[in-house]
């Protein structure tokens, strides 16, 4: 089974905060509301270290692949930040 969920992962807490702010702006919600929504849904987020337990829990539940969903293709800087963080998980 694979899961597709939002991806806000970053190498540092400050970059993560910027990406969350952008993700919230794109969805027209507050950062607080988005954080709470994703936390409830079990979305991995934060630095790779912070997100690792959530990914491990999915793996234990039989999830073999996680589709990191990114909404804004034109946000090149954000994609660069995400890829830098994700490459450490691969």
């Amino acid at each position, binding site marked *: *089974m694979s899961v597709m969920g939002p991806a806000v992962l970053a190498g540092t807490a400050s970059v993560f905060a910027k990406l969350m702010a952008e993700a919230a702006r794109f969805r027209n919600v507050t950062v607080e509301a988005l954080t709470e929504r994703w936390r409830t849904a079990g979305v991995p987020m934060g630095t790779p270290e912070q997100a690792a337990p959530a990914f491990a829990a999915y793996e234990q539940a*039989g999830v*073999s692949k996680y589709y990191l969903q990114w909404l*804004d293709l034109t946000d090149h800087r954000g994609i660069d930040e995400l*890829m830098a963080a*994700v490459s450490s998980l691969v």
Partner: protein
Amino acid sequence: MQFSFMTEPQLGGTYHDLSRAARLTEQAGLVSFARADHYYWAAGPKPTTDAFTSFGGLARELGKTRLAILVTPITFRHPAVISKSAATLDEMTDGRFDLGVGTGWMEAEHRAFGIPFPSWKERFARLEEALQYIRASFSGQTFEGNYYRTDAEALPQPRQVRVMVGGSGPDRTPRLAGTYAESTTTLPSHHQIWRRRSTRCARRQQPQDATLPRSRCR
């Protein structure tokens, strides 16, 4: 855990934005690059690209990363077109294409483009027949359904298109996936529900990603 990068080009972006993201995905070592298949978004129209056509370009740009359409609505294209496009991408990528299919759900998109949008019940019936059609097409079989039929010998047969059924429903979608596909995908909050469901798998095979354990195929 494998990771894939999933993009939503219907929210805006050129082919060059898509290509840039795909090449970064390959550089980062992710297993696949995925995109949605929509022409429109309910919040308003944005410049976007066609899924199969854009992947024809990416097939030539990437060398090892799989490409996945997640998912193509069976309301958009006849299964003959889906099958032929998938077989072509399979050849162009040397067997690195994953085909996700679903019922289609965004009524506003269909209405805006004048694409027929049958009832929920009919869309599921069409999805099941489309999956049967695609399976038949990939293996040189014939198929006769209420909505679709084929006795064409579609060549070349793909080497390794992985079929995936996407959706968030807890009943029909897992059953269709277990019966006709190699894998499934769902949302973060739904995976535990899917795990608990008993799914009957007509193919009685272990799906490649162990989505539906063999014990559930009885």
